[in-house]
């Protein structure tokens, strides 16, 4: 008695092949759809904005007149904000990840903490804006300064950095830790010389991607009351400032049609910024992977 009827198998072969091809086509179209949407967006923004893109656009402050409006205050403000966000979020994020993965004993409490950090990564950014408004702007009386915005953005991306760092640290094989301990290394020596060097490409990739999210976020800035019309550059961490997404948001909601084009020019600058940061992430990853 044979269970496989080969004649029947051959008969069914055609329809199986059709289904096989069908799914390939569906998945391809799904990808194509996303790419197409992205392409149209790019086309629209570039065709609208490129005319307003000039050195003056980078060097001018905001203005009532579209042809005079520039992104200088927002560009510099975003840079100042990132100067706060990058060190704060990376130090806190990587530090927490090291604690959770290397030091924390397995316990119910720690499992609970781990689970909630992953959940925090999914909390909407508006909520983080409210948190920043309550803690940094009001309770700590930092006002709508660079520091307050930087801390708020750090909180927002902290869960993402922690989770990415935890995953890279967890991916370091235990055998390497054992080898290090086996030679009399302390825990910190093992972390500094074995775990982190192996984990750093992943940590930096995750970190920079999180930072590029921070530079594009608008909602928390709106909530903590970051102004748009700023005619001076910040000179310390407690200065008022504005940021690129705020400026773009403001231009986009103005009634004059020309400002739509100015907004597109702003988006181009922001996207070049994001692309630069993502390329740095890729370069760092490749460089470290070659060495180790």
């Amino acid at each position, binding site marked *: 008695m044979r269970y496989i009827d080969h004649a029947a198998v051959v008969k069914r072969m055609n329809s199986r092949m059709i289904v096989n091809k069908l799914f390939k086509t569906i998945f391809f179209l799904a990808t194509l759809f996303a790419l197409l949407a992205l392409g149209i967006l790019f086309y629209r923004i570039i065709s609208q904005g490129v005319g307003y893109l000039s050195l003056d656009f980078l060097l001018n402050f905001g203005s009532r007149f579209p042809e005079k409006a520039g992104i200088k205050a927002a560009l510099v403000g975003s840079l100042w904000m990132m100067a706060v966000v990058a060190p704060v979020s990376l130090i806190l994020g990587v530090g927490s990840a090291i604690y959770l993965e290397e030091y924390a*004993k*397995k316990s119910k409490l720690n499992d609970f903490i781990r689970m909630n950090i992953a959940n925090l990564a999914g909390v909407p950014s508006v909520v983080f804006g409210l948190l920043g408004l309550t803690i940094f702007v009001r309770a700590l009386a930092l006002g709508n300064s660079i520091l307050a915005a930087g801390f708020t953005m750090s909180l927002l991306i902290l869960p993402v950095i922690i989770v990415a760092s935890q995953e890279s640290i967890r991916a370091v*094989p235990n*055998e*390497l830790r*054992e*080898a*290090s*301990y*086996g*030679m*009399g*290394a*302390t825990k910190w*020596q093992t972390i500094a*010389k*074995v775990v982190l*060097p*192996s984990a750093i490409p992943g940590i930096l990739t995750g970190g920079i991607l999180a930072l590029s999210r921070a530079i594009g976020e608008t909602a928390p800035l709106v909530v903590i009351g970051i102004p748009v019309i700023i005619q001076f550059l910040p000179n310390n961490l407690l200065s008022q400032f504005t940021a690129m997404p705020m400026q773009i948001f403001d231009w986009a909601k103005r009634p004059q049609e020309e400002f739509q084009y100015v907004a597109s020019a702003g988006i181009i600058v922001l996207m070049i910024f994001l692309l630069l940061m993502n390329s740095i992430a890729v370069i760092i990853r490749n460089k470290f992977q070659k060495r*180790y």
Partner: protein
Amino acid sequence: MVKLNVNNQNGTNGNKANQKVTDSGIVYDTRQLNLWYGSHHALKNIDLAIKENEVTAIIGPSGCGKSTYIKTLNRMVELVPSVKTSGQIIYRDRNILDADYGVEELRTKVGMVFQKPNPFPKSIFDNIAYGPRIHGIKNKKTLNEIVEKSLRGAAIWDEVKDRLNENAYGLSGGQQQRICIARALAIEPDVILMDEPTSALDPISTLKVEELVQELKQNYSIIIVTHNMQQAARISDKTAFFLNGEVIEFDKTDTIFSTPSDKRTEDYISGRFG
């Protein structure tokens, strides 16, 4: 037991100096060792006196506690949470299970080679120099000398001397394992623990490691866990047979393999179980 005063004053020949002082020549004296993983009683009343400058093989079926025992000798077993121990392991006159015995200090004297070759994803040089560096040696010339001496000691110098700056991952499995042995030698240990060091290697690499073990016992005390009974018979001076967390028999390797006194030992080495 005699007090040790002239510890390691003759530099690399520390073992020889110790031998003169310690009449018994016992490097590890395990007394009534019990170990639990949570509620699982993994080692039961182990008494084992391991002599120096010998190769001591530990054999037994999977799950008999032989790996647990060898990892207790440098307290690596503590990396597993919820491990409890009782009893004593006297190493050079001190009980290593004492809470105030620093594991880092112990592991500087007791090197370990693991089941799977586990070089660091660094250059061959940096792999060997890792141990000396963590113990504070920074001088480049000293490090160079240590690296060469260790690689020669592990009989792999000629194969890698021209590519010390290449990543150790580029080597074959057998070479990687000898790099790991060289790395253990670089901390100038007194004892080398080997946890099934050839189980991931092909027969030719296995043979090389076995030959190496024979050479190393001139200067080091070696304790080796093995699944391979022929290997135990080939390379060891003494053999301990573990079963269900107990030492069933511990004797000269020749005796264990020719005239074992316990029926269970005989059954195991003749392949009737395990």
